């Protein structure tokens, strides 16, 4: 079946609504407007205003309401238009959702699922282009998912709803239009393990979200140069799949971590540290990172492009790790 990432997410929501009547979706504009990325288009007509709920402009309010509903036995899917606006709901997410199980001595799980669009590349400037996926991955008590393929867009949501604790799904804005083939019987997928999207022997490109698409393109280019690159899609940023990270480095002995977020204190730093901790004696070169340039994401197209990791940057970083391999060439 030919489909898009957007339709795959919509299908996942539809399936969840069908399967469990405790599930409902809420956010600003998810109903009548169809969602700011048109993900929930048509769902209001299908499921009605009780289950597809337009909310007031108050992230703190409706995320808090979602957490309350989850505590009360519902299975809410709370959309936050973009990660940028989730900063208004940080207290609800970090202080409440992530901690209540602990604070209640194990009495109350918070089975809320929060979906957010993330990332830059659409020329909407600094305040609407953030990549804070890795930031949320810092918080114990949350599970962070970054679907990068149609299968994951289709399959991660239900598994997330099954999780008794809060899960955040980050959907990169540039992925919504991605087209491809999806099996007709595609359904829920496991969310515990990273996935090797392309096998290789010379260098590992370790990434997630939009980085997977770019790394796969880079791997294609590297193959033309005789460099065999493996692409590891982390899929879950918390908890990180340490085994998969160590295994890929064990195979290739070189790693490039690709993250649209900033390097200082970012998830790329964490991944690099885990490689050093778990696979130091397998390294044949220092771990390289391709990250967003440490500036507020620029508005002009050429500057935005320069500020975000591009395929060429990955190629360059991988080449630099490899070039030593055979001496002068």
């Amino acid at each position, binding site marked *: 079946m030919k489909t898009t990432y957007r339709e795959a997410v919509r299908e996942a929501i539809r399936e969840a609504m069908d399967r469990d009547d405790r599930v409902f979706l809420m956010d600003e504009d998810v109903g009548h407007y169809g969602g700011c990325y048109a993900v929930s288009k048509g769902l209001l007509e299908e499921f009605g205003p009780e289950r597809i709920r337009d909310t007031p402009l108050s992230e703190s309010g409706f995320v808090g309401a979602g957490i309350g509903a989850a505590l009360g036995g519902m299975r809410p899917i709370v959309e936050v238009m973009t990660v940028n606006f989730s900063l208004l709901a940080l207290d609800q997410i970090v202080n409440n959702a992530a901690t209540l199980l602990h604070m209640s001595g194990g009495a109350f799980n918070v089975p809320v699922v929060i979906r957010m669009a993330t990332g830059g590349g659409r020329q909407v400037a600094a305040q609407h282009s953030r990549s804070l996926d890795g930031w949320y991955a810092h918080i114990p008590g949350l599970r962070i998912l970054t679907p990068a393929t149609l299968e994951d867009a289709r399959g991660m949501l239900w598994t997330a709803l099954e999780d008794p604790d809060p899960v955040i799904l980050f959907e990169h804005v540039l992925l919504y239009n991605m087209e491809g083939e999806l099996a007709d019987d595609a359904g829920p997928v496991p969310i515990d393990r990273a996935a090797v999207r392309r096998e290789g022997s010379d260098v590992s490109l370790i990434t997630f979200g939009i980085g997977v698409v770019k790394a796969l393109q880079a791997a294609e280019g590297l193959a*033309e140069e005789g460099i065999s690159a493996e692409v590891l899609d982390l899929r879950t940023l918390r908890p990180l799949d340490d085994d998969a990270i160590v295994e890929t480095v064990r195979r290739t*002995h070189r790693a490039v971590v690709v993250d649209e977020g900033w390097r200082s204190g970012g998830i790329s730093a964490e991944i690099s540290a885990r490689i050093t901790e778990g696979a*130091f*004696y*397998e*390294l*044949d*070169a*220092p771990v*390289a*990172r*391709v990250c967003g*340039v440490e500036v507020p994401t620029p508005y002009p197209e050429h500057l935005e492009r320069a500020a975000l990791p591009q395929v060429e940057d990955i190629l360059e*970083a991988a080449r*630099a*790790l490899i*070039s*030593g*391999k*055979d*001496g*002068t*060439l």
Partner: protein
Amino acid sequence: MSKAYPMPSLGAGMEAGTVVEWHVEPGQKVSRGDVVGVVDTEKGAIEIEIWEDAEVEAIVAAPGTKVPVGEPLLRLRTAVEEEEKEEAPAVGAEERTGGEAPPAATAEAAATAEEPAPPTEMADDEFVEEVWEEEQEASVPAEEPSRRLRASPVARKRAKELGIDLEGLQGSGQDRAITLSDVEGAAKKGGSEEAPAAAPKAAEVKEEAAEAAEVAPEADTDEDLATEAGEDRHAAMRKAIATAMARSKREIPHYYLAHTCSLEASLRWLRETNQNRSPSRRLLLAALYLKAVAGAIEEFPEFNGFWEDDAFQPADGVHPGMAISLRGGGLVAPAIHDANSRTLEELTEAIRDVVQRSRAGHLRGSEVADPTITVTSLGDRGVDTVFGVIYPPQVAIVGIGTAVERPWAEGGMVGSRRTATLTLAADHRASDGHRGALFLDRISQRLQSPEDL
């Protein structure tokens, strides 16, 4: 303004070069086009030129240092913003290189050492800041005089398993670190002696124009200087050829055309012209070939340039590269610049010069990097037809077979003519056979009236 003069890229696939010597010293003024030093690459020692008027501020890479393309070799002070002068009297960063700094740099280091600010560090800091974004800091500190052996963790582990001593191994990784493949390479060598280097006479290895060969009979003596470094260079050159040719055959959809033409007019004219000239002033047939190709190309610009970024980029000038085989194996194809606008005398002179320097390993960066098309002749090696392999990112190579006497029918009569087979191997992405045929025919026509060349 203070700026870096980086290691230039001297051809497709070059990643690094080793500084052989400097012809300049800190404080010296240089002008655009000056040869400032010599770097050793797979293609031999190349004289590198400077591209702007400037003053040498510091030598960053001392002789013996291997420097990746794009990393700084020198620091230059350019004319603008003279007032910065006091800010960073950066002397050579000789402690970074460990190699012998030129005496002048050392002297100046001593002279400035008494100044309050630590100038060398300042220079390094600036440098680090510049490359920070590129994240290639790994290649910054080339070598400190005494530091621990640089080997990657997995290389150390493997060396231990194999019982190999890391000391004395040549590192090929970043910062010359010993890598896994260095260790495994050493293990292989130790196990099976050295494989005899069966001088690979691959079919596509082009050879020089016979006439060109005659002009540098002394070249062997230069090559006798070949020490271990020379042998390394040959191995590296073989690898460079392997990489370029494999890439060519992998990426370039070649098409091939051949056309046999009479050389009678050219050879006769050449003999008459050379009759009254002293040997040193005699024109070379190779100059005629080069001029014929260079002139024809003006009408067929789609064969003169590069295939880059999925598109043909026509070259600004006509700089045919002339394939010259080297005595010890391997070949180079340095550019004969602006061949279309030079006289046959000038071209002859240029060919002699470049052949001699190729063999002696003194090519210039611009000669190695600039060729826009290649011309190869198998000269007196006795083959009729050369099936060229394009040197990427160029898009065409013209081959000229041996001049041989053949029966030749012309105007209803059969006679004997000296002829040669011209071939064209061209990139089908950039041009089509129809134009290729016309191009080849145009070269042939031009060879029929050598007096007009």
